[in-house]
Every structure is written in C-alpha cells, then in structure tokens.
C-alpha cells in the first residue's frame, strides 16, 4: 500500500520528494526520459498528469503543457501505455493526476481497473470532491488504489476529517490559495496550518504549490512528509531541456 511505502521510506529520509510531469509534454519520449532522470536523482514518488483540455485548477505553466501535449496528439490511450512502461521500468510509486472527465468518458470503473492493471498506485483528481466521487472511491477501494484528496488553508477541521476519511496513501496539502505554479511566501502561518492538518488526519502530508528551491525544500523539512514540485520542473525542461532535470532535482534536495 502507498501509505506504508511512504512511512518506511520516511524512516530513511526526513523529507520525501514527489515530482510531477505532464505525459506527452513535450513528447512521450521525453516524458520517459524525465522520469528516468528524476528516479535516478532520488525522487521518492511521482505524479503523471494525463493531459486534459480544461485544466481549471492548473496555473499557466502546466496549462500550457497540457494544451501543447494535446496539440502534439496526446491521446489518453497513449498516456496509459507510457504509464504502463514507466511503472514497469522504475521502482517508485506513480500516481495519476488528471481531471474527472478523463475517467468519466472512459467509464470510471474501467479506468480505475486499468490503472490497477498498469501498476499505478493512486490518483489525484482536483475537480472531483468526495461528494461527487462515489463511484470513483468505490472502484479505487476495490482495486486498493489510493484516492488522494487535498487540504487547503481554508478547509475547516471538519472538512479535513471528511477528506481524510475518503483518502488513502497521503494527503496533499496546498500551502496557499490559487492555482499551481505561483510563488508562495512560506511563513509562520504555514506552521499553524500544518498543525491543523496533522490533527485532522493520520495520513502522511505532502506539501505542494510553489516549491522550487533548496531553501523551500529545507523550510518544509520537519513540517511535512513529502515536498511536491510541479511547475518548476516544466520550467527547467523548457529552459535547459531534459538534461537539466537531474541537476535541478539534486540541487533541490541539497545534493547538487
């Protein structure tokens, strides 16, 4: 199970790193090479985003990656095949990140079964609150996959408890309001917020949105279990190509 993987990994490392890529951006070959670079650099788990035409919760960088991937012909089936290849080749857990319509159009049960089949360990569906996700949650449970939900600074304690109940693996906590890829001022408030998160769930906490430097990474150490890096990797690839990915990750973790 995903949670136990995280817990055992945490015994060796104080802060794990989860990274994110958009499948098919800039193309499927590069996606594969980025995963390879990240795994080699020591990333602990990864989100593989299946592109969607209306990524309402994503900021400009990931949005553009989504639409470029689609424009280059990224089909869902192709994403699933490459994901299968990835899980077969690399030994860390991979999660899907995508929007609900991708599941819905394929049939939720069928899609979740396929996820299990190709070795995906869980999913983050940002436009699917648990109230709308009955079928999805049931299917995920049947296949022992981790449905991951999001805590935000304005979630109530009650809401956090509900979300926690519906989740497994870990909780994705966002550090601030807004979409992916914008700057976050990490401050003392964050401590209080994470305190609230800890009290609401027994699951490990991943902290996301805006992490992009070793200082950010260090700041999170001790506060959460997993640091999430999303948009910044895409910026690095856009600037330095796939070759830039590994040095960036190493630098981030303080190893570079």
């Amino acid at each position: 199970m995903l949670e136990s993987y995280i817990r055992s990994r945490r015994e060796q490392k104080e802060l794990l790193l989860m990274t994110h890529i958009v499948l098919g951006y800039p193309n499927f070959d590069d996606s594969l090479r980025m995963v390879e670079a990240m795994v080699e650099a020591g990333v602990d788990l990864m989100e593989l985003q299946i592109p969607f035409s209306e990524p309402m919760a994503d900021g400009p960088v990931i949005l553009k990656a989504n639409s470029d991937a689609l424009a280059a012909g990224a089909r869902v089936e192709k994403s699933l095949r490459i994901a299968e290849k990835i899980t077969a080749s690399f030994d860390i857990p991979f999660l899907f990140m995508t929007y609900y319509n991708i599941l819905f159009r394929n049939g939720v049960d069928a899609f979740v079964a396929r996820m299990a089949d190709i070795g995906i360990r869980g999913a983050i569906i940002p436009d699917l609150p648990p109230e709308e996700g009955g079928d999805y949650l049931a299917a995920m449970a049947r296949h022992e996959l981790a449905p991951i939900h999001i805590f935000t600074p304005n979630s109530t304690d009650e809401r956090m408890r509900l979300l926690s109940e519906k989740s497994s693996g870990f909780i994705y906590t966002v550090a601030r309001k807004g979409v992916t890829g914008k700057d976050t001022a990490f401050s003392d408030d964050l401590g209080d917020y994470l305190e609230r998160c800890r009290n609401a769930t027994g699951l490990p906490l991943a902290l996301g949105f805006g992490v992009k430097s070793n200082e950010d990474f260090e700041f999170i150490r001790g506060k959460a279990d997993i640091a999430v890096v999303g948009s910044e990797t895409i910026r690095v690839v856009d600037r330095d190509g796939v070759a830039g990915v590994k040095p960036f990750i190493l630098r981030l973790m303080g190893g570079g």
Partner: protein
Amino acid sequence: MQHRGYYDQFGGAFIPEILVPTFDELEQAYLEAKADPAFWQEYKALMSSYSGRPTPLTQAENLSDHFGGAQIYVKREDLNHTGAHKANNVMGQGLLTKRMGKTRVIAETGAGQHGVATATMAAKFGFDCTIYMGEVDVERQRPNVFWMERMGAEVIPVSDGSRILKDAINEAFRDWVSNMDDTHYVLGTACGPYPFPEMVSWFQSIIGTEAREQVLRETGKLPRRAYACVGGGSNAMGLFSGFFDDPEVELVGVEAGGRGKGIGEHASRLAYDDASVGVAQGYKTYFLQDDDGQMQETHSVSAGLDYVGVSPILSSLRESGRVRFEAATDQEVIDAMSLTVQREGLIPALESSHAFAQAFKEVGDLDPDDVIIINQSGRADKDIFTVADALKDPKWEEFIIAKAKGYQNA
C-alpha cells in the same frame, strides 16, 4: 453545500477543494435570498429603476403577416440597460455579492455582453472588476472591451486553449481560487457548478414571469410555442421557466448550427448528435468533446453561443422531452436578422436571431389564432463588426480603411 444541484443525471459541483467553503457560502446566500421575499422585491425594484424592467412584449404584426401563420410576439430583453438579458443575472448577483460582503467581482465573457453587464454592475455597486475574455472574442467584440474599460474594469485577454468563452471560464476560476475571500465570480449563464445553473435561472425567471403575464393580458391566451436561443442557456431558462407549468406551451431552444453538422462546425450540444455527456468546468452535461473527453472546437457566427457545454437543467429538460431543441445555421440566422430589421425595425443580436430563425421556419404552419413568443435576448448594435462582415458591406469596409489611415497618419 446543502444540495448538489442535480437535474436528473446532469449538474453537480465538480469544484477544486479550495473553493468548497466559497460555494458553501454562495449556496447559503442564494438560498437565504430565495427564501426572503424582500430580496426579490429589492431585485425587482433595482431592475425597474436601473434597467427599465418590465421589458415589453412587442407584437410583430409585419412578420406575422409575412409568414401568414401564428401571431408573433417578441419579448424585448434588448431594451434592458446594456442591451441584453445578461443584466438580469448580473444585477441579481451584484445584490448577492453585497450581501456576502465581497468587494470585487470577476467574470468571463464571450460575446462581451456579459462582460459589459458585469462591468456596469460593478460600477454601479462600486466593486473592483476583472473580466476574462478569450483573445478571439476580444478581437471580434472590441467595442464591448472598450466600454468595459471605460467602466473601470480590467479586461484580460485569455490566450490559452481555443481562446474563446470556455477558456475565459477556466481563467476566471483560476482567479477565483486565488482570491475567493473578497471576490465573487459572476458566472454569466446557467452553467457551471451548482448553485450557478439554478441561481442564474432564478434571476432570469423574471423574463418568463413577465412574458406569461403580458401574453395573457394582451392576447388572452398562452402561446403555442416559446422560442429562445441557447448558448449557456440562461435566456432560454428565463423565458421557459414562465411556462413550465403550462404543458400546452411548447418550448423550443435554438442552438448555433454554424456551418452545419460535424464537430468543429457548430455549437449544438442538444439539437445535433455530436455531443455526449461529460464533466468539465465544474458540472456534468452534454459537451462537444472527443472520445477521450477533450473539449473540441466550436463555431458560430455569434460569439455568445459559441460554447462547448450547456445548462445541465436544459440537458435534463431535453431528456424529459419538455423542451425541443433545434439548430439554426449561420446563414439562416443572418437572413432572419435582416428580415426582422427590415420588417419590424427590431435589431436582434446574432444570438437572439437564432430564435427568430427557427420560429420563422415553423410559424407558417401554425394557425393565425395561435400566438408564439420569441425571446429577443439582446440587441445587435454592438455586433456591428460581425454583422457588417457577415453581410460584407463594402461601405463599412471603406469606412474602416479610411479610419485606419487617419490613425496611421496621425
């Protein structure tokens, strides 16, 4: 939220977690307002003193004679302040925004009408205002952008995706998830996550309530049919809701048939069979999408109907058969508009002209004793660039070229 806003299988609220408290608050404000008769009184008074409601129901005798069928009556939403039914929704949400103590509004806009209406409301209520508008629409509806800016609104051209209405909606949501504390998102049509479809329809129901009273008073009978164009579906919901309890009134929603059937050629979600059920932009309905669930390009001569989704309430009314859906092509629409301008001196917006076009196809078959109502959701003054292009008016082109020379030489 107390409710999830389902109409049969359609609707719901597929929202990012961060907006959950915002939607809770909005639902609560909406339900309280709805339960409070004073709120509707205040709303009606505002619409009367600011926007000129009730709008008249105008008998179109010349068109009726021309087709020789039923008597045609036109509900004149074009006479609203800012020139379209959009004012109804926007002013209502303005009152709610005040009630919620927020100080900033944002909105998406396609045709620009909703943007102008929102900017107007913001000026009137003293709110800050940001309008998201697809780059393509900024180009085709520049006069609207001009007026929004004069009102003090910031207009942000959206260059993502297909750069039209749906992309503006995504972008508005992106703003909202960062600024929900002081900001209300004034969604412009009966789409989006609950409670928007229901709330927008509620504000627009002022159209149907008036129309029913007026047609009874003026003709002594209910209409055989009521026609409205369907973009997101708000003006249609507004008119139709006045007649939901009158099964003898046939309700006809008219979508953008564009250049005809086939994905990419039109924006008909319910009349043609190119659409399928999906979930996007926070709600479940018929979308023009591919097998993967990716939204597809749409086309219409009218920016305001050029949208991939449709009100979930209308999707459910299609399934139940209560509303019939048809599509009118670009050419039919331009012809219907020209005829209406010439015969009645009315200038229906290109969006509204879809309703006229469909009515014209059918009205001749009805009896002269019958009455039909067409909803003129807006006026076309601001569509002048589009209409002039559609008609390829050479004098207009000369005028623009001369104007441009003037600017370049200055």
